[in-house]
């Protein structure tokens, strides 16, 4: 039974990834006009164009192009950048850690804020702290991530001069510098993530608290704190895992934006640069990797979800 569910999810994810490859493959096909001409510029000669089309594989039938593109991509060969002629795979591998580090840090900050806030406001519904939590989370959802970045830079860099407004040092080079550059972007993403998480955690906690066995446990005479921690939290875990899964997708979206604002060398800023330079193979590469990342996270969440509570997985099916 267990394995069947997991295999099902795996197959489903593979199908999604296959669909993703089709969509990403089509990027270069759908460009209005001749991608070779677009990338070579108006002064390109026929010969240049022919060579470029060949390099892009555009002279072969669509089906063949797709198969060879997917086959290469599966082996990690995403082609070469049109602008620099460097292989794309290593470029992405270079940028991916920044994106993941930012997402991870943001998630951590988000959880540090959301868990206490969500739990307290669920335990004391209707109190001031609950109202504040609700208001803050409404605010967080409505504040554009790039504006939040601006506000934080205005406060911490321009006014207080505590932190650098942009730039990046790799974690391997200097941890302190890395953290200094990451903290504002991570806070931006973290706050936004916290506001969404708080709502979920609060309602998940409320739901669990209402359920019978908590009452039972309470009747057994356990102290309230233990009730909360041991029973409610564990049961709320299921919901929380889902949230984190949902969160990661939304978070990655925010991270893309925030990277660009803070000029961090991640996949988001790489994509925007590639769009600006009309470097279609590079756009394809970054978008493909991000989509696979999201799909993998979703798969992971589904599986964890199932391991915590197999009943729910069945219901979903």
């Amino acid at each position: 039974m267990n394995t069947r569910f997991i295999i099902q999810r795996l197959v489903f994810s593979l199908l999604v990834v296959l669909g993703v490859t089709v969509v990403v493959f089509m990027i270069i096909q759908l460009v209005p006009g001749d991608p070779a001409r677009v990338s070579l510029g108006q002064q390109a000669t026929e010969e240049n164009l022919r060579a470029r089309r060949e390099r892009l594989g555009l002279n072969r039938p669509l089906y063949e192009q797709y198969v060879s593109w997917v086959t290469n991509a599966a082996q990690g060969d995403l082609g070469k950048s049109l602008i620099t002629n460097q292989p794309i795979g290593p470029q992405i591998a270079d940028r991916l850690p920044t994106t993941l580090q930012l997402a991870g840090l943001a998630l951590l900050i988000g959880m540090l804020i959301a868990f206490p806030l969500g739990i307290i406001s669920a335990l004391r519904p209707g109190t001031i702290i609950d109202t504040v939590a609700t208001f803050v989370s409404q605010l967080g959802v409505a504040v554009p991530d790039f504006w939040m970045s601006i506000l934080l830079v205005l406060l911490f860099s321009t006014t207080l001069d505590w932190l650098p407004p942009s730039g990046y040092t790799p974690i391997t080079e200097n941890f302190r510098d890395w953290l200094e550059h990451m903290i504002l972007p991570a806070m931006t993403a973290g706050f936004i993530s916290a506001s969404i998480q708080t709502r979920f955690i609060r309602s998940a906690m409320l739901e669990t608290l209402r359920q019978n066995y908590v009452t039972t446990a309470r009747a057994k005479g356990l102290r309230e704190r233990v009730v909360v921690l041991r029973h409610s939290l564990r049961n709320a875990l299921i919901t929380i895992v889902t949230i984190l899964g949902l969160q990661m997708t939304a978070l990655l979206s925010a991270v893309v934006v925030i990277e660009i604002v803070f000029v961090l060398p991640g996949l988001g800023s790489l994509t925007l640069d590639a769009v600006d330079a009309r470097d279609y193979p590079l756009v394809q590469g970054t978008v493909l990797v991000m989509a696979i990342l999201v799909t993998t996270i979703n798969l992971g969440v589904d599986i964890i979800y199932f391991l915590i509570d197999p009943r729910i997985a069945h219901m979903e099916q």
Partner: protein
Amino acid sequence: MKRLVIALLLLSLFVTSGLAAAQDPKEGGTLRAAWQAPWESLDPHFASTEASFQVLNNVLETLTFFDDEMNLIPWLAETWSRSDDGLTWTFVLQDGVTFSNGRALTAADVVWSFSRLVDPETGSGNAWRIGGAGTVIEAVDDLTVTITTESPIANLPASLAANKSVAVLAKESLEDDGTIQVPIGTGPFVISEVEGTTRLVLTARDDYWQAGVPYLDEVVITPITDDAARDLALQGGEVDWIFTISPQNLETLQNDDGVVVALAPRLSYDYFGLNLTKAPFDDVRVRQAIAYAIDREVICQFAFFGLCEATQGPTGSGTPWYFPYAPYDRDLDKARALLDEAGYGDGFEMEIMTAIGFDETLRGAQVVEQQLDEVGIDVTIDNIEFGEWLDREAAGEFDAFMLSWLGLTDVEDYFYLQHRTGNTFNFTGFSNERFDELVDQGRTIDDFDERYAVYEEANQILVDEAPYIYMYVKAEVKAYAPYVKGFATRSDSAVNFWTVWLDQ
């Protein structure tokens, strides 16, 4: 008295700051430089952007060279001479120059590079610099090369120093598919790493032909496209040198002890071109009315925060080719009268095409929009992708296009290229017999005063006919950390890193 001495001392420091005065340069170190845009092609015959050319500036070299004061000096060529008919130029290369791959530079390399440049198959937008497809380049011996053009080019030696499209590169730069990804040159640096368009490393050659330079070991170039972010990166010490500042930050940066701001008048101009092939711009009175209706001081102030010089003709006061002809001080009554005469007393609608990414152009267009509104001309700004902009410019699908001309060294770069009948970059459709005669004649003259007189007349015709409405000439601005020494901020915007050293 003491105060005066200090003031004089400071002044002299300021004047010679580019020369790094008395200090001995220190060897070694890495300069972290922030570009204003990602480089596109690194093939000098394809490159078209500043970002690309300024990378190539440190890798490739030309036969002649402009020193920091814009004097033409020998470089890869030791001497040159012109034949009596003015058609053939002979250049003698200096001995002992090697490419970064170790091979010695010969006349054959010049022949190959220039032939590729003028080959119509290559399609370089810079082929005109040495005459075009009809130009014959031949090696006389290992170190002597002749360039024979179809019609005389008076300024060929200057033209050969204009930018790196006319540089000499090794044939080995060519990839199998006929493209050049990383060119091999004779310059002081080699491109040792290219990470997409996000990071590029220039590594110093130890076998460079000029003794002693470069001082730096490496230059790491990263583009930071956002103006504010770039300034802050310098202020925050994340980079040592930035390509340009955001003009509105000039004062802030000048007041920052951790930043040196260096200025020089630029060899460029900002303008908008009108479509002379369609009404109402086919009427010279309408064009003049537009020229009278705009206030160039205000445009300079708001488009480029005053870091510029309002001009009514193409040349600014920073070049010896400045012509003080200025008939168009703002005069709204005159503008209205001219429009009336032309039959457009009630005004008309027009579109100004700007390109996404050229910020000051868009800002200038918005000011122009407001100023032309005062004489009844209703301007719409169409801010589009540069690719589309170029296509529409080439196809003549515009009322007006706004941009700037950069990297203009010789006087004819200001006149011949854009305005002679039938030239590639003549997008306005301007055609004037006397003007053509003058600019053709100007190409055959060596004597400065004689040439000046010819171009002065051409300038007057051009300004009167107003196919271009000139707005301002920008100041070149570079900024770097105080420990960056030996960098010369040049009028031609060239970024030369081999004289730079780090005092730390």
